[in-house]
């Protein structure tokens, strides 16, 4: 099939960008979206143009590197998938596709469709861990039983891939889904309890510092999240935050 692409091109963080039109022929419905961009880039290189820059790595929906706002949706029209798992059979011959970077103040553009999501790393650094050193002498893994229900819920929260689709889909560019997924994972497990208060306070404060917006319970993040991270995590984080702020010194 033939497609018309409108792609955001931006030389660098401080350059101004614009949408540029491209035509691409002979797109197979079995191609992934990123393979379609590979083919476009091959064409651009052979014409002497600069290829379109975008983040990608594992191409199987788990590393969280790929992003892209496709026709106004993070990771495009599919549900429960990342851009690398989106296939061209989701589009028709003659379609026009708009491809933009994830847009948020806290995710500055690096080049073209590539953005800087290191704000997420800094949020994790502010408290997204259990403070336990490496040691061959930690207690036996089975010494502390965990309710299966809680272990499963912690796992579900922990499947977040840190892609930033929640931020990109939110009208407030809020990172609440991302932050609450990590807070929830630890708040559901006994290992996370000793630092629970400090964790939620520090992570929320870092989130604010990075320039992410607030949550107004629209729920777009949950819909667009490729891993189906639930809004319940935000509710849980709000409870944890309230508890911590009322009982901290």
């Amino acid at each position, binding site marked *: 099939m033939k497609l018309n692409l409108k792609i955001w091109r931006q030389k660098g963080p401080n350059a101004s960008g614009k949408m540029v039109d491209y035509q691409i022929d002979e797109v*197979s419905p079995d191609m992934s979206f990123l393979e379609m961009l590979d083919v476009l880039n091959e064409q651009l290189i052979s014409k002497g143009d600069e290829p379109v820059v975008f983040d990608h790595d594992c191409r199987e929906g788990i590393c969280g590197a790929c992003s892209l706002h496709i026709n106004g949706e993070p990771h495009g029209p599919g549900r429960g998938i990342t851009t690398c798992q989106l296939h061209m059979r989701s589009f028709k011959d003659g379609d026009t596709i708009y491809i933009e970077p994830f847009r948020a103040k806290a995710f500055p553009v*690096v080049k073209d469709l590539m953005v800087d999501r290191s704000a997420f790393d800094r949020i994790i650094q*502010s408290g997204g861990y259990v403070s336990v050193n*490496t040691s*061959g002498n930690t207690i036996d893994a089975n010494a502390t039983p965990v309710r*299966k229900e809680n272990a499963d819920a912690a796992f579900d929260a922990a499947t977040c891939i840190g892609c930033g689709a929640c931020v990109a889909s939110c009208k407030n560019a809020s990172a609440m889904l991302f932050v609450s997924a990590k807070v929830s994972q630890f708040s559901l497990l006994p290992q996370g309890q000793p630092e629970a208060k400090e964790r939620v306070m520090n992570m929320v404060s870092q989130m604010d510092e990075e320039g992410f917006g607030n949550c107004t319970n629209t729920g777009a993040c949950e819909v667009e999240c490729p891993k189906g991270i639930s809004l319940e995590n935000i509710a849980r984080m709000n409870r944890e935050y309230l508890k911590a702020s009322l009982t901290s010194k």
Partner: protein
Amino acid sequence: MKLDSKIPEGPLKDKWTYHKNNVNLVSPANKRQIDVIVVGTGLAGASAAASLAEMGYNVSAFCFQDSPRRAHSIAAQGGINAAKNYQNDGDSTYRLFYDTIKGGDYRAREANVYRLAEVSANIIDQCVAQGVPFAREYGGLLDNRSFGGVQVSRTFYAKGQTGQQLLLGAYSALSRQIAKGKVKMYNRHEMMDVVIVDGKARGIIARNLVTGEVERHSAHAVVLASGGYGNVFFLSTNAMGSNVSAAWKAHKRGALMANPCFTQIHPTCIPVSGDYQSKLTLMSESLRNDGRIWVPKKKEDAEAIRAGKLKPTQLAEEERDYYLERRYPAFGNLVPRDVASRAAKERCDAGFGVNKTGQAVYLDFASAIERYGKEQAHMKGLNENDKELVIKLGKEVVASKYGNLFQMYEKITDDNPYETPMMIYPAVHYTMGGLWVDYNLMTNVPGLYAAGEANFSDHGANRLGASALMQGLADGYFVLPYTIGDYLSGDIRTGKIPTDSKEFDQAEKEVQDRIKKLVGNKGTKSVDHFHKQLGLIMWNKCGMARNEKGLKEAISEIAALREEFWKEVKVPGSANEMNPELEKACRVADFFELGELMCKDALERKESCGGHFREESKTEEGEAMRDDENFTFVSAWAYNEKPSESELVKEELKFENVELKTRSYK
């Protein structure tokens, strides 16, 4: 050159304890004066960087991704082995050791493998303490599953995302040290060279991928945890960015490359669908527990299927060839990875393959659906002869076991595996070979270490399922932190390593020249153009089956293509900006040299063992035949500009605790 593997004295089970008790230590005050560089932030790199920082060393960690959390360990699905014996099924350190040695077809070092099995239990304790949400049973204790043909259940897992959960655990530990300032993290940085001063590894040259700036970083020791080199085949299950460059640069600076031809080809991957294909997707090995693998018995049927005139579901049982069950009645569909892969290739090469390309076989769940359905109907007191009901119930059971994998398959292929058999084909997945290291994980270059998939150490000629995660974390959490201190204890009075020495000048200049050459090249063809051709040569001649003629051809074809690459490659853009084409070009240039060395290694190893199958070395029935008399050694190669003329250094393998046996799965 003579290699010293530095295996400690004493009985196998006491070696590691003895060694830990006798290595030199570095006092806390002195650790603060010592710098360590860690390249790569997968399981091995992130766990090593975090642990070394906790101990007090100043660590600089590098990854080419935008965040350390994206390293390719994250994509591992199935699980992690550990000899916990929670299931009381007779597992022990010795059994895990034995299974690993046997699975590796007796081409790994006993002492290293025993240590791996010994620390495996600590890994699980450590990860649980970090809040890794492993699967649990209703009683609240950890669940296990069985994997890859072994006779015990020792695999810990977190659904089909074990690698992700373990990596995020290590990433959390790393993040904590970054926050403390004990690790300086360099994201979007690629190691371009390792710097050797007075014979010791003393730093690296790195390129900031955002600005293009070439930087100097010094340290008292350098740890490479940069993963495997499966992308030499272009198509593999590796991430797009996975590469050999860090390891290859070390090789060029004197580190030996061991067993490079030992590659693992995983039998259950989604087949190639077209020329535009950029990577292959693995479907977990666990599917072979219930799926039956087959191709049509008659060639006409295979041809009709390829032409789209016949559907697999239209073929009756007696028209199908369940070739694994036929050839290996004892293990059937659960033979090890290398055996299953070769058998699929054999059928497809003989013209029985399905899919448009003829390069696929069926993995069929119909009989599992029926079996589970009947069982459910019986348990619920329903009519076992109601076919519709049985299939409905059976599908529910299969969905609860493999639902996420079926969904993934459907997303990629648009076929529903509940209704029609899956199509699968083998793909490159893991590389057992890597930098040669001694018992301390140090390469033959003093101060240069290699951990995880980047080294050759533990899996011999074939890796067992769920053992890659185990090795990565064992190296990073529990081995390196001990062994590196022994070396660094000699550096407490050295002081900061300057970066203005002639060695750094020289290394940086070489990097700059290489970049300039690539960017300034007036070629006409893209990097991928060359990479795809290299991949094809490797796949056809150094893939699942190898022979002398093919390998010799491959060596000359690769050399010719490499020459053309340097003349004809076109790298758009400049060196002083984010330039993914330049990154690719630098990596592919190294793959060209590695590919040739792999063929050389495969050519010289005239036996079949594990993932390395030489067509000249097989039994009358066509099974792989090892040659213990002549090839019980590690092939370590010293760098040569013409890789096929590299010098071979042998490390003889001594087996004092296990008896060498022929693997049989009949």
